[in-house]
């Protein structure tokens, strides 16, 4: 079973994402910020990460930069999931190592499409 870590400071978003991902057969773990997410990845690297941008303690972009320097940190497919819609910022995220980008609000169809595009579903 593939694993996905959902990183978002909103419990509601984590819950919605979990429901969509579990319906797709993923085993889902959750983290409320980038620091928690980094600890979770050090314990067990997931196949995919659904990552919010703006979070307390450690932002999504900061988490991504640190993740990619971790042993095995190049492996997970990282899909940003953010209210950010500025293409310049999305380009930055891709340049920093993100595989895909979802602009909130999202639905199951968009998540599935992006997981497929990222090569993880």
């Amino acid at each position, binding site marked *: 079973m593939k694993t996905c870590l959902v990183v978002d400071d909103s419990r509601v978003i984590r819950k919605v994402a979990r429901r969509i991902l579990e319906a797709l057969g993923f085993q889902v773990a959750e983290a409320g910020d980038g620091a928690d997410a980094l600890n979770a990845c050090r314990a067990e690297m997931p196949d995919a990460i659904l990552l919010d941008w703006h979070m307390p303690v450690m932002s999504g972009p900061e988490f991504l930069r640190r993740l990619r320097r971790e042993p095995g940190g190049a492996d997970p497919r990282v899909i940003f999931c953010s209210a950010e819609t*500025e*293409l310049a910022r999305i380009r930055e995220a*891709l340049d920093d190592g993100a595989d*895909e980008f979802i*602009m909130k609000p999202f639905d199951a*169809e*968009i998540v599935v*499409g*992006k997981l497929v595009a990222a090569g993880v579903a």
Partner: protein
Amino acid sequence: MTPRERDYVAALCAARAGLGLDVERPYLIENRLAAVARREGFGSVSELVRALRERGEERLVWAAVEACAPAHSSFFRDAEVFEALAGELQAAAEQGAALRVWSAACGAGQEVYSLAMLLDERGVEGVELFASDLSERRLEKAQAGIYSQFEVQQGLSARRLVRHFANGEDSFVLDPELRRRVRWRRLNLLEPATDLGAFDLVLCRYLLGALAPSARERVVGHLVAALRPGGRLVLGAEEAPPRACGLAPVAGAAGVFEIPAGVRAAA
């Protein structure tokens, strides 16, 4: 909307555009007509239908028919089909061929723009892209190349989004260079298109299922008539043309059909 009104609209759409509306699901028809009724200042769909019957105003008739035509479209629907087509076009263009592609029933343009993006990414020049739709409103949207956040997340990768689009006002605007690559025209596929010239590739994807059976043969006949010898018709991945059209599937390419060589020679 009464059953009588529903049947009137269904008959109108069948006569004008060959559409086979699903009369078992009248709420879908009503939903689409509600937008037209609002736009045209009618208090209800019933009022709109009464005006259609009594006024016989062509502009209003077409507004209703166009609204009932299939509208769903997305970028890179069946991505592997587009990759294969772009590869074939690239190979032919590199041999020096001047190629022409027609996206028939192009909707809001996502299909023809998907091809335009691929050709741009591969640096392929010399492919003429032509697109048509029954709906004037959808053609206007296509030509403007302006898409919502939801639309650009259907089938379009983030890398393609940042490469080919700019931020608009609560929207995303396709690169003007790509928009300029496509020529547009309003066309009713039920009528023969005699002045378009011949095409190497005609795309008409996921339309046949929305047509009345009697219209399918006529529409496909018009599309086939626009093919150059050796040209191909591309339907939806699980669609097939009516048997009477005499097309043969191309091996290994779902939804792609051509006129068999023997038939071409005889013609």
